[in-house]
Every structure is written in C-alpha cells, then in structure tokens.
C-alpha cells in the first residue's frame, strides 16, 4: 500500500504543485491520478520514487517512509513506465528489459532469459529481443517499456501517461493488455493520465485532482460517474457521463429472445419486421427484413455477462433492427436482446 500523508510540494518560487494530499493506493489495485495539466498528478507520482522530494508530509510504502530509503535502492524496487517509453536507444530490446535485474546484480544469462519471458508476457515476439528500439513501432516500444518495468517483479508499478503518445487503436489494445496483466500479477499500480475515459476504464480507484494540486474526489469509477463531488468533477467527467456509467451495469440479467434467428438461406415469411440470419456454424450473418427482401444489414454483438450495458446498447445502435446480438465466447449466436428488453434494463439502471 502507498500512503500519502498530508503531502505538499512547494517550489522555491512559491508555486504549489501538490497541496496537502492525503490518500491511499491499496495493494494489488490500480489507483489512477487524473486531472488537467498543472494539477500535480505527475509530481505526485514522482514523489513516490523520490524523483521529486516532498516539501511537507510523508509518503509511506507499506508503512515505511520513502524518505528513509536511498533513492537508487528505492527505485529498483518500483517499476516505472513513461510516455515515450524511455527505452535506451543504444541497447537491444532484450538488454533494455534486463536493465533492472542487471542493476540488482543478477547474472547476465538469468537476466536475459527473464527478459525474453517478459517480452512474451506483454505480447511481443521474443525474436524482437535482438532488435534496437528504433526498429519498433510506438506501441511495441511501449510494451517493451511495460516489460522493462516488470522485469525485476517489483510489487509497485508507477505509470506516467504511458499510453498517451500512441494512436487510439493501439492505446485501447495496450489498456486491455494492462488489465489482463494486472489480473495475473496483482501489482499495486499508480497510473497518471489526463484522459478521464482511460481513468474510468483502468482504475479500481480514481483520484481526480484540480489545478494547484488539491484532491477533488477519490472514488471508484462507478461512484465517480453517479455521484461527482462537485461542479469541477462533473465538468471534468464530461457530458456523456450517463452513457459512460452504463459501463458498470451488467448484462447477465437481460432476457434474450431465441426465436428471431433464421438460416442464412431465409426467403421471407416472418411476421417480425427484422430477423437475424445465422450461418450453418451458428455465427451471425446480418439482419434481414421479415418479408425476405434486400441484402443482409449490419449487426452489432455483445457477450452477455462479460460485456457491459454500454456495449449492448452500442451493439443495438449499430443495426437497423435496434436489437443487439448476443454471442458466446466462441462467437456463436446465443440470442437477441430486443429494444424492449434493453429499454427496461436502461430504466432499471437509471433508477439504481
């Protein structure tokens, strides 16, 4: 657990970057610091590994004040990932990843094989180990950055806007990858971002900071969306707060209809306005008019129980029928959530 105990950072010119911050980042959870630029989120992060020292107050790492630990020793026990990955351009990928184990005095062979193992773990081909950073894409470099931070298996991971310099598609896959890794590793992660969507997606707890380094609200994402503490937090969350809250509403209770599917060769004769054509192996093909006219129209899918109401609603909005196709893990159709069912579920979510 990381504890901020009335921490203030004041610079020589009088600027206050962090103002009397007290919070806890629990063990095994992702705590996100989010806020506009100038809110002191990066400064707060860097005070944990003493890249910046606090002016007042204490930061405790499992109860021990970090001020009492020699900085290089402290830092070798804390993984760190930054925006441009910060890879060493003159070292091969495998040696980049092996950096901290080597600093800790592991022998070379052991450090390298650990590095190879981690490359695989973050979804990279171990053959990439022999390349130099400039030969990798931004997304790949960032994965290497994560692998490097994890190399010595530190219990704590600090991440400073690690995914903000890559394009949105890569960012999404890196975020998913982080959540997958965290499910396996259970690190204590402090994650800094200016992107509220990223904060809500990744955070077990989200600390919203305001300019001047004051804590505006500390809550889990669902509470943050439904009960913002004040106007600043409400404004920072943005306009589609209601839609985003659906991310935390489950889909396991949805009643699915199974009588709306037809074989791919369907030629009309259904009383329903829209029916879902399904291939021989059970996968969705497209929506067809009940009278059999026209080509299959686009459809959207969600996995009941796994995906949120936001995904289900999104799937429904993608198809002309207004219905969302429920599929299993194998991609086969298990049923259809109709407009009426979704409507009822939304009404319930709005009440709750």
């Amino acid at each position, binding site marked *: 657990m990381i504890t901020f105990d009335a921490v203030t950072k004041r610079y020589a010119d009088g600027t206050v970057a962090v103002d009397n911050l007290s919070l806890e980042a629990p063990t095994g959870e992702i705590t996100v610091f989010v806020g506009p630029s100038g809110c002191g989120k990066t400064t707060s992060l860097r005070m944990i590994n003493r*890249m910046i020292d606090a002016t007042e107050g204490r930061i405790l790492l499992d109860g021990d004040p970090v001020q009492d630990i020699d900085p*290089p020793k402290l*830092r070798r026990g804390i993984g*760190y990932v930054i925006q441009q990955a910060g890879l060493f351009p003159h*070292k091969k990928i495998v040696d980049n990843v092996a950096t901290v184990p080597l*600093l800790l005095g592991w022998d070379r062979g052991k450090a390298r094989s650990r590095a190879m193992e981690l490359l695989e773990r973050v979804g990279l081909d171990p053959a990439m180990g022999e390349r130099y950073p400039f030969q990798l894409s931004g997304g790949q470099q960032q994965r290497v950055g994560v692998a490097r931070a994890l190399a010595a298996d530190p219990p704590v991971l600090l991440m400073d806007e690690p995914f903000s310099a890559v394009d949105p598609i890569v960012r999404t896959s890196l975020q998913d990858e982080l959540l997958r890794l965290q499910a396996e590793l259970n690190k204590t992660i402090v994650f800094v971002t200016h992107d509220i969507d990223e904060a809500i997606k990744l955070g077990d707890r989200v600390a919203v900071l305001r300019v001047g380094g004051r804590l505006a609200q500390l809550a889990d994402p669902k509470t943050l969306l439904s009960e913002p503490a004040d106007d600043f937090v409400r404004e920072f969350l943005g306009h589609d707060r209601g839609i985003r809250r659906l991310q935390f509403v489950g889909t396991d209770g949805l009643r699915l209809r199974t009588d709306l599917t037809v074989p791919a060769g369907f030629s009309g004769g259904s009383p329903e306005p829209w029916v879902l054509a399904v291939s021989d192996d059970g996968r969705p093909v497209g929506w067809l008019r009940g009278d059999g006219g026209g080509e299959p129209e686009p459809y959207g899918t969600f996995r009941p129980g796994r995906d949120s109401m936001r995904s289900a609603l999104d799937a429904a909005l993608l198809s002309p029928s207004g219905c969302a196709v429920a599929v299993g893990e194998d991609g086969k159709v298990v049923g259809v959530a109709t407009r009426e069912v979704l409507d009822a579920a939304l009404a319930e979510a709005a009440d709750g």
Partner: protein
Amino acid sequence: MGEPLLARLIADGPPSLWEWFARNWDTGRAGSVKDLLGDHLVMSLVPIVAGLVLALPLGLASARWRWLYQPTAGVFNVVYALPSLPVFMLLISVTGLSKTTVIIPLTFYAIAVLLPAVVDGLGSVPDHVRQSAVAMGFTPLRRLVQVELPIAVPVVLAGLRVVAVSSISLVSVGALIGQGGLGMLFTRAYQNPFLPPVIVGIVLIVALALVADGLLVLAQRLLTPWVRARRAS
C-alpha cells in the same frame, strides 16, 4: 625553383619519384622518411589522445555546470584562433625545439573541437531516456557510464574525425621549428628545389589522414551498431 612545378614533375616522372622514396625510406641515418613518418605519427596521435582525455572531463563538467561551458569553450577558441607560428615561438622558450612544442598547441586545438562535441553529445541524450534511467535506479556514475556516454559516442566520434585529420595535417607546420615530421620534406625543398620529397610528403600525410579516418569510421560502426539500425529503419 626556376621551372614551373608541373613541368619538373613531368620531366622527373613517376619512376624517379619511386626511386627517391626507395632510396630514402630507410637510410639508417637521422632524417630518413621512415623516421619522419614515426615522428609525424607521435606528434599527431599524442594530441588526439590527450585532447580526448582532457576534453572528456571538461565536457562532463561543462554539461553538469552549464555556466562553466561558455568561458571554457571561449578560452580554447581563442587559443585555436592564435596563429600557430607565434605560439611555437612562445613555447620554444619553455619546451625548446622539441616535439612537445608541437604537441602542446595541437592538443589545445583538439580540445577546442572536442569540448563542444562532448557537451553536444551529452545533450543529445533524450530527456525521457535520462528520466527513465533515474527512475530505474541507476546511480549517477553508472548512468553516465552506461547510458549517457554511450549515447554521446556518435557526436564525439564525429568531432574526433575532424581532430584526427586536422592534427595529422597541422604537424607539418612544426617543420618551421625543425619538428615537422613529414613536413620536413617540404622545407628541404626550399633549400634544394627537388620535387620527389614534396610529393612523397604530401602522399604520405594524406594517406595517414585517410587511414586514421577509416579506423575511426570502423570504430564508430563497431561501437554504435544502433545508429546504423536507426538509419536502416
């Protein structure tokens, strides 16, 4: 030197050039071409190495304490600007007509080129790379040796190539005080207008410079494979 140089060269022809070289390469007496080549190597290599050894700590200090940089670089630039002949004259009173009298100013010239190269090389380390080295727990010394200096190598080596070639060429000026290595072959031509030694001197100096430059390029390839990797990508 009554006749035009080119006419003389044509009249003497390459065979006499080679003949002269073969006869004078190793005469067993002082002043053989072999001896001059050896002297030339010593007087050019010592300043290159000494210049690098001195420019490194100066550059590191200048990168660490920025206020130090401009005055230090200024001093060496002024020395660089001084014509070498009066500098030799001045030094003769201290070090006499020795190789040291040539080596000292050439070392200063080397520092004048290498000091900015070291500072710029260290400046070429991206900030996020330095930050991540700090965050991973490098001690300052280890960070310098394992991260910052290796990344500075391409810029420093580029400076070193200039220094190597200019040192090898500048040594010949020392002939004016009787310590010019292969440059001695040029001054002899004043007393005895005879071309082959001049040509041999020029060819050997240029060859030396090319070999030195080639070795440095080779060193660069071996030391910084990642620079080629970057260009290829």
